[in-house]
């Protein structure tokens, strides 16, 4: 191997070693939070289960109310706007 190649190989080895150190630092930093993440994942699962319940209830409510509720409210809007345009005068 040429001197340049030896230098490059050395650089490569140093950088790889640094990567190992950094990965170790990362693992050490994240180790204390592993349990918290397990708890959080469990809470998210509970939340997702609730979301399913909420979606089911919403579907039941919408099945009863819609689309008639939207139609009635829009008709109320038209009637209210027409009513506002009528100006009464005294006498």
């Amino acid at each position, binding site marked *: 191997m040429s001197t340049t190649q030896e230098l490059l190989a050395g650089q490569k080895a140093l950088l790889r070693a640094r990567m190992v150190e950094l990965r170790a630092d990362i693992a050490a930093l994240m180790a204390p939070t592993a349990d918290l993440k397990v708890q959080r994942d469990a809470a998210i699962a509970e939340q997702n289960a609730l979301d399913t319940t909420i979606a089911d209830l*919403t579907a039941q409510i919408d099945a009863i*109310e819609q689309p008639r*509720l939207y139609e009635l*409210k829009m008709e*109320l809007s038209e009637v*209210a706007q027409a009513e*506002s345009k009528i100006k009464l005068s005294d006498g």
Partner: protein
Amino acid sequence: MVALNKFYDYVEQESKAVHNWASHTYKAALTNTAPVATNTILADITQIAASGGYVAGGYTLDSVTLTETGGVAKVTIADEVITATGGSVGPFKYVVVYNDSATSPADALFCWYEYAGAALTLLDGESITIDFDGTSGVWTKV
């Protein structure tokens, strides 16, 4: 058409799933104090006094619909008629739409509309309509 003014914090809260347009309760609160885009929750809004049927928290928007077509989500809200009953409502110039179901943050804000004119006071029996765009929707998202 009156412009929708979105509160800055909405996009963050939407990304955190605080808002669910399919199932949460959205309300319209009235104020005569101009909101600012950095407001985040209903408590930041100075609501008008309770009178004429207006209670703290405002009016529930009963018909909020979320749809998706061709990858575009759209929310439409049925027009909301506000009628002063047993007294006057106002004065107010702004309508603030917020999420009454949100708890963290509580009553997260979505947007406000500004009435183009002097502040309104509805006398007993008078009505005004919050006329949401039923065709293009209140908002769309790609």
